[in-house]
């Protein structure tokens, strides 16, 4: 101990004052006996001494050595590969928890001060490691360990203990993960959980089918089958078309992915979903990836067209006759004969029918809505029509009082598909209408090629539907003049997704066929117009110049999705130098991706990471300069990732981290050896204890006691 503070001047001054006070005291006690006089003087001297000591308040330092356990950060991996239960019920996390809670690791950790963390794609500080944590997504070891090691804290951990299966979901090479952690200077001791052997799991990582086949056509469905950890098993595969099983096959699993081919016959026309399924194996970790499906469009051997007509009228009767005359076109007609919804099949023997008997629009190459209100169709069919066109169907709306805005179509799902803009206030324009074919466009070209001239001389039509406008990417094929207004859109063509749309805003073209002024020229014009319009609608999809291929229609969340866009010209020759954009619309909103050129001529590729599970609509649009080359679309399904469930332990990742940071790797069974490896020596600290006796309670009581005794004796001995 040493006195570290000296106040000599103050002490001298106090001593002088005290000496003077004692002298006065000695003088004032002359009247009492000497013994009492000496006693009072001694008491007073002692009192002054303690007061002077208190004023000086000297500090006394005493050095001392302290010991405490070291700080260790313990990080437990709670990613899905750790926490999700395999069929036997014991997850990797459960095993790890038992060791941390009451096993070897608990013993080792008892000798240290522990800070606990749960890690997946980040780190979360916890008081205790819970027996049943909320599972994270995938493990990002570099990110989560960095969060622990770089966080500011009063004391740096001497080591970090990582309990994990090493299944790092960040897809970074182990060396990069490890190198990034070296810079923190804290050794990471890795305790490996789980087996590096493949997790038993049957999956179908690939399924390929032709995108479009013809009804009755033979085609091949190719599936890739992987049976990790079940190499000696036989997998029973089945294929369903919708709900109907159409093929089965036995496949010896083997050690690698194996192809399975199925020869199928295209069934009912429309969009058919073919699903390959492997039954769940008792020991596999998940059955979520045991099936994969692909959508195939089956074109009718004979083109089919659906006409839904709102009422018997001459426009319908004339169009009906033409449709039934077209070779290789099967026309199905639903005619409403009484409001609100008394429909009849009218293409053969007439009979009453329900609108639902129209069936899936995908069965038809084109659908024509003629003078029918939106609500008469019911919500189901109306909403399916928009998707139907987007996927490659063709839709036409013909004029009449119940068409377009006046028919309540402005707010329907079909509104986005049609090539016109509508509003509920749109009505009819009751003026004579003269028409003229426009210059540019596929349909005007077909009309001019028909040899019919002088369209403006055709019998005048009596009125037309008003529309709010023409869609931005639509083309006016026939325009009209009525009521002093020119360039009124009469026939408009457009595209919606991969499909075609047509709008005709007049409802009495029959006047060209039969009316007082009708003649051979106008009859030929009527025939040419409807033949070209229907022909344009039912043209096969193979004419498309932009084809989007995604390979399959089911992808795992978080995985990479690859799309190839084929851009070809009318002669099927690849087009180079196109700008191809892929629009991805899914649960997370809309984004655009520029597709890059690939080594293959005319093929452009784009890759992106699949987001949240849900339905995603892809639209590929190709342009060359200002020329629109077309677009195509597909819908894919993003499903929950099962990658984490089937991921074997990766001890090599843990070894790399341990090696790079100066720690060590141990499998969980040898966790007790960690005691020998961890720097668990107590930490020694030199500490100095500072003493100030004058500031203690005892000292204060001593002063009070002396002063009290002094006062009492003076009273007793009658000293002033």
């Amino acid at each position, binding site marked *: 101990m040493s006195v570290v503070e000296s106040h000599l001047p103050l002490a001298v001054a106090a001593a002088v004052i005290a000496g003077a006070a004692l002298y006065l005291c000695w003088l004032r006690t002359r009247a009492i006996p000497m013994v009492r006089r000496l006693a009072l003087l001694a008491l007073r001297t002692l009192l002054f001494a303690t007061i002077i000591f208190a004023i000086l308040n000297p500090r006394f330092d005493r050095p001392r050595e302290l010991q405490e356990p070291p700080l260790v950060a313990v990080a437990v991996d709670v990613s899905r590969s750790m926490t999700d239960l395999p069929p036997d019920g014991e997850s990797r996390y459960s095993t790890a928890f038992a060791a941390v809670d009451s096993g070897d690791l608990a013993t080792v950790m008892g000798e240290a001060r522990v800070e606990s963390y749960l890690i997946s794609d980040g780190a979360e500080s916890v008081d205790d490691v819970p027996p049943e944590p909320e599972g994270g997504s995938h493990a990002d070891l570099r990110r989560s360990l960095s969060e622990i090691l770089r966080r500011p804290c009063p004391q740096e951990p001497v080591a970090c203990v990582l309990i994990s299966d090493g299944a790092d979901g960040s897809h970074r090479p182990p060396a990069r993960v490890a190198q990034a952690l070296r810079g923190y200077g804290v050794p990471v001791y890795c305790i490996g959980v789980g087996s590096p052997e493949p997790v038993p799991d049957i999956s179908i990582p690939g399924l390929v089918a032709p995108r479009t086949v013809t009804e009755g056509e033979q085609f091949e469905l190719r599936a890739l089958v992987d049976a990790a950890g079940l190499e000696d098993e036989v997998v029973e595969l089945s294929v369903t078309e919708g709900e109907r099983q159409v093929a089965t096959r036995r496949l010896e699993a083997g050690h690698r992915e194996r192809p399975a081919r199925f020869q199928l016959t295209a069934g009912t026309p429309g969009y058919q979903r073919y699903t390959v399924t492997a039954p769940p194996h008792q020991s596999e970790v998940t059955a979520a990836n045991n099936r994969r499906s692909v959508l195939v469009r089956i074109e009718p051997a004979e083109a089919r067209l659906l006409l839904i007509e*709102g*009422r*018997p*009228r*001459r426009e*319908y*009767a*004339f169009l*009906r*006759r033409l449709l039934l005359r077209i070779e290789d076109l099967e026309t199905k007609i639903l*005619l*409403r*004969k*009484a*409001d609100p919804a008394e429909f*009849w099949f*009218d293409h053969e*023997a*007439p*009979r009453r029918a329900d609108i639902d008997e129209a069936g899936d629009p995908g069965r038809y190459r084109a659908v024509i809505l003629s003078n029918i209100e939106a609500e008469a169709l019911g919500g189901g069919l109306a909403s399916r029509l928009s998707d139907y066109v987007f996927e490659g169907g063709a839709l036409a709306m013909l004029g*009449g*009082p119940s068409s377009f805005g006046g028919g309540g179509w402005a707010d329907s799902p079909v509104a986005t598909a049609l090539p016109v803009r509508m509003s509920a206030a749109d*009505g*009819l324009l*009751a003026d004579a209408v003269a028409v003229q074919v426009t210059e540019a466009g596929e349909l005007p070209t077909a009309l001019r090629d028909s040899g019919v001239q002088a369209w403006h001389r055709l019998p005048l039509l*009596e*009125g037309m539907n008003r529309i709010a406008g023409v869609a931005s990417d639509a083309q006016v094929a026939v325009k009209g003049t009525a009521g002093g207004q020119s360039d009124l859109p009469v026939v408009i063509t457009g595209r919606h997704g991969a499909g075609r749309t047509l709008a005709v805003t007049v*409802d*009495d073209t*029959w006047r060209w*066929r*039969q*009316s*007082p*002024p*009708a003649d051979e020229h106008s*009859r030929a014009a009527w025939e040419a117009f409807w033949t070209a319009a229907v022909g344009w609608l039912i043209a096969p999809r193979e004419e498309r110049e932009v084809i989007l291929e995604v390979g399959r229609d089911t992808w795992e969340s978080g995985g990479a999705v690859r799309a190839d866009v084929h851009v070809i010209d009318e002669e099927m020759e690849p087009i180079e130098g196109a700008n191809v954009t892929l629009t991805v619309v899914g649960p997370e909103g809309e984004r655009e991706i520029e597709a890059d050129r690939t080594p293959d001529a005319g093929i452009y590729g784009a890759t992106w990471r699949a987001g949240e599970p849900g339905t995603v609509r892809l639209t590929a649009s190709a342009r060359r300069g200002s020329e629109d080359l077309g677009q195509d679309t597909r819908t894919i399904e993003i499903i929950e990732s099962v990658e984490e469930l089937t991921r074997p332990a990766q001890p090599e990742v843990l070894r790399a981290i341990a090696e790079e940071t100066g720690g060590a790797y141990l499998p969980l069974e040898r966790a007790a050896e960690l005691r020998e490896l961890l720097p668990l020596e107590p930490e020694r600290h030199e500490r100095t204890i500072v003493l100030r006796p004058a500031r203690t309670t005892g000292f204060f009581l001593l002063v009070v006691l002396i002063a009290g005794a002094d006062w009492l004796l003076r009273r007793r001995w009658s000293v002033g």
Partner: protein
Amino acid sequence: MQRRLTATILVCALAMCISAAVSEERIGRLKYGGGGDWYANPTSLPNLLRFAREHTNLRIPEQEETVKAGSRELHAFAYVHATGHGRIAFNAAERANLREYLLGGGFLHVDDNYGLDEYFREEVARLFPDKELIELPFSHPIYHCLFEFPNGLPKVHEHHGGPPHGYGIVHEGRVVLFYSFNTDLGNGWEDQEVHGNPEEIRQQALRMGTNLLVYALSR
């Protein structure tokens, strides 16, 4: 201000009237030569049109118009009705016009009101020398396109004894001329007090007439 409002209302009303008219199909009564009473059964067509409007969604007028066989205006009509008790005859121009109308997509219903049959058959032979007036089977859509007539035409009046007959001239699979014989549908369409037909008979006749309108506007 009030004047402007009145004008606006008038314009809107006019536009609505024109809009309604634009979409309406025209229904005609054929005025033919030869001396027959083409104007017979005056209340028949208005009654039929009212009945059809009530039971279907056809856009048809309340009254028929009269149209001559030789008139170009004939081509504006979706359905033309002819009836009478006597001679019916067309000249060459009328025949050509009528033939053009029917083969071009028109529809003519001839209803024998008694005494028309002989003259009409002669005229049809001249009108369609290359076609035959055939009796339509009971399975024909004209008997089933809205109301069901499994036994063909309903019987309204007894003219010649036996059942009624429905004949047709068929062009490209479509009946362009329908001839109702030995029933007198037109009498059945007339006001009830004109012929005193039982209401059930009238209803049957009106239903069959509605079938003819629906057929004409959908085939």
